């Protein structure tokens, strides 16, 4: 990668990461459908990992996770029993989202753009399912609160609508990364070179 390509990569990633994070938390109502807000941050990390590999997935995941923690970090009951805004949960969650997105569909499928939408749906389902499980466990263990959303609510009002809005949001982001992405023609040359065997070719457009 020459200097020009490196500069393009850094600048575009910086612009997209800040834009995606700021837009989601500043104008959530603009990106809301079916009572849910598109998780632009999650979608961006998934597609970056899916299209451009593990390293990109990890770096983008960590940066987006850091901004998610900063903008609207989760609150837990601290050691003095008072609520505390913690740092690091977004970092950890999005690190794994980035890695997972770059691993799924790696060997069994050719890496095509339409499959990116399936990837977004799958990772969204995993993220929100795990989020509900951990949230329920946390409430049960830390505060002995047994009541939580019903399975019906979790599926019909949380996970399914969220998958739907995330897939809708993934279409413009996918096109953006493909045509005005951090890599020329939407292809990271290192990935193609590394998997040049015909049956396993990535990013065949």
């Amino acid at each position, binding site marked *: 990668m020459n200097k020009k390509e490196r500069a393009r990569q850094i600048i575009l990633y910086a612009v997209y990461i800040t*834009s995606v994070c700021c837009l989601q*938390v500043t104008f959530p109502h603009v990106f809301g459908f079916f009572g849910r807000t598109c998780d632009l941050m999650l979608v961006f990390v998934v597609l970056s990992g899916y299209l451009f590999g593990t390293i990109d997935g990890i770096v983008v995941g960590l940066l987006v996770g850091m901004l*998610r923690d900063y903008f*609207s970090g989760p609150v837990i009951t601290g050691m003095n029993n*008072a*609520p505390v805004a913690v740092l690091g949960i977004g970092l950890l969650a999005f690190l794994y989202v980035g890695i997972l997105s770059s691993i799924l569909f790696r060997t069994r499928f050719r890496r095509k753009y339409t499959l990116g939408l399936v990837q977004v749906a799958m990772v969204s389902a995993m993220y929100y399912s795990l989020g509900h499980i951990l949230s329920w466990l946390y409430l049960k263990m830390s505060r002995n609160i047994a009541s939580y959303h019903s399975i019906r609510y979790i599926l019909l009002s949380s996970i399914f609508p969220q998958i739907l809005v995330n897939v809708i949001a993934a279409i413009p982001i996918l096109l953006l990364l493909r045509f005005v992405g951090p890599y020329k023609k939407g292809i990271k040359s290192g990935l193609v070179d590394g998997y040049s065997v015909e049956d396993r070719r990535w990013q065949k457009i």
Partner: protein
Amino acid sequence: MRRLFDNKLLVLALATLLLIAFIVLSAIPGSPLSGATKPISIIVDPIQSVFQKIGTKISDFYSAIAEGMEIRKENEELRAEIAELEYEVQQGEEARIRWEELKSAFSIQDSFENYHIHGASVLTREADEWFSVIRVNVGTDSGIDSSTGSYAVVDARMNLVGRVMTTDKDSSKILPLLHEGFTVSAKVNEVNGATVLVSGDITLKSEGLCVVTRIPSNIILKPGQELVTSGEGGLFPAGIPIGVIESFDDSDPNDLKATLRPYAVISDIKDVFIMVPNEDTDPTQESAKDPTSSEMVEDPSGTSLETAAPETTPSSETSADTAPETPGEAA
């Protein structure tokens, strides 16, 4: 050593452990990690403000076009209304002078007069169910410092919105009252009203409701009854309106519960006000006694504004029951 780092799973496990340690450390009160966001805030806050300004301008422009006809009609109605209001203002000025005389004669205290109120605009909202803190555009530079204590946050009508969690240079994180980590000691806004505990509840959050617990066994809450902060615990001054009772569940006499609909609609709020006690104020002694008073308010640009006082008349505090505020703070 290099071989060690070639093992990707090991590196991932180490990174995970490091991040878990980071999370645990950041949860410790007074941890140096709580200041870790300050460098981020220096870079990100101005960018985020630019996004907000651009978005607001686009929204205003779109509204101006879309609502042009409506605005013209409304303008005509407003002109007529202004004429009526001017007359009322003259009468109000007379009443104000009389009120000042009475206030001086009877030594009546203004509501929340020992608090300095900082106006702030909402910068960011929740990202999902779990990342649900609100961020506003005042921080340590404006004199809001969470290291010296937390502060109550109210809306333009002085209804409770939440509390300040952490502060950075130019921004602060606010825990909204619908969040399951939020608790406040409240009382029924009546003479000798019962003291109860209002908390956020994960199952009621999506409906915009809070749960009311620790209701004394001899008390029946009726839908429509208003709850205000009791002032116990010291964080919130007494008399801030919280909301009205939506339903009451007495199926278990030992565990009476009710749901409360807060006055403040968090998703619609654009501006909030942070109540910072003056240095010589004891919040537990503070009580809203005068429903007609007003406060001098400092808006985000630093100029002083006049805001309406709460529309309620909080009663005197003589309740026998007590309930602590957010855990840990009553102590």
